[in-house]
């Protein structure tokens, strides 16, 4: 089962705005890409311009990325009230 198929099983209420901000200056100088390997939803990837982007809509709200990124690029906040993942089992 692909990770995108797993995420499709979850209930999400997606906001129009992201709750995860990246500091492109920090990301630009990063070699390790901790976020890419640590996100359990596989939401981090480089775009065609070589910039790190995060697909916030599938966020499981664990907050791992902001701690794994020891350079402090990830500004992570909870999604606004009423948005984000809605666990039915947990």
């Amino acid at each position, binding site marked *: 089962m692909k990770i995108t198929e797993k995420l499709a099983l979850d209930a999400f209420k997606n906001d129009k705005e992201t709750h995860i901000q990246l500091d492109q200056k920090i990301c630009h100088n990063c070699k390790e890409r901790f976020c890419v390997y*640590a*996100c*359990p939803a596989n939401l981090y990837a480089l775009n065609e311009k070589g910039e790190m982007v995060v697909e916030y809509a599938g966020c499981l709200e*664990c907050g*791992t990325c*902001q701690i794994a990124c020891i350079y402090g690029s990830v500004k992570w906040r909870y999604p606004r*009230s009423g948005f984000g*993942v809605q*666990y039915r089992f947990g």
Partner: protein
Amino acid sequence: MEKVDVIIVGGGLAGLSCAYELADSGMTVIVLERGDFSGSKNVTGGRIYLSPLRNLLPDLWKEAPLERHVTKEILTLMGETNSTTFELYSEQFNQEPYPSYTILRAKFDRWFADLISEKGVFIIPQKKVDDIVKEGEKVIGIKAGDEEIGADCVVAADGILSFMAEKAGLRQPFKPQHFALGFKEVIQLDPETIEDRFRLGDGEGAAQLFVGTLTKGMMGGGFLYTNRESLSFGIVVGLQSLNRREPREEVYKLLDDFKERPEIKHLIRGGNTTEYSAHLITEGGIHIKPKVYGDGILILGDAAGLGLNMLVTVRGMEYAMASGVLAGWAIKKAKEKNDFSASSLAEYDKLLNDSFIIKEMTAFKNSLSILENQRLFSKYPQAISDLFENVMRVNKHPKKRLYETISQGLKENFLNLQTVRDWLQFRKI
């Protein structure tokens, strides 16, 4: 600014237990929960131990929507192509009151919140708190969107990422070595199939932990808990070892690889995955416990770093609930004196220190340093399985004496200085 007696930020186990304790106190208590309902943002492995909680919350459990009471503890050491399993069944686990249950948080927390609402506590869902309101050093309320609400006491029960504790200046900066990531699938299976596969009676449950090659050398392990009609199946890995791992590989792939192992494949066969979830776990133990009180504020549960990895058991939910009850006691006492200053609320810290929570966290203060030993997660599970396999296997060569096989295995992997050192380290926990 509108004012109440107590604002509890976060309607999870810690916040709800505090609200439950305060429900009959005559104080005005509100719980602000960012999810659509309590439990909708919560994840556990999970199993909850009730024994430490029965005195603190005696009336809660009869009607509680828990899953199965755990009668079987299973530990599997995973090698590359083999594994060894220890299975413990005890009559003690199968006698009421049952010591532990598997649990699904979206179900349990929602029920608990409804129960507390009926007792007159206001639980407001879809209400994310953005900030605390201070007057000098004293916390006097919270801010949610444009709205400010005042309170004599703000209770930060907003989970492991506690932004409240951060805003109050009571939390240490996050470090990868103090956290682990847990992620899991909930796999639907009918109850009879679960009971047959794990050889359980009606309503009985199993808790299986896995350690070894599944985490590819990283600190952590796998878990499998039987719920009533599903399995909670997942992996936990320490963030520091995840960051340091070579070769680099996306963490989510661990679970897919693990699922392909025959030890797992046949247990989950025919099951439908219905949810995928993830959550952080505190691993820092007593070393990162913040100051849990200030002027007008208390910090509970995961937000206060109350959690423990005891190697074979992982604790957190009981700590959250117990800390909620203790905070409730401290708040009632502060109300009697009408004094919510830090020195008055310090009562909560005293109660915590006298409780099983801090006693256990102190007793296991060295567990993190033991867990940093990579050999626990790679070499030893493999070596034990290899040794056992050599004892059991019959091949084309004449079988050697058992003593020879065992002593050769021990010599190769265990009778050396490094293992002795590891064993001496182990004395610390």
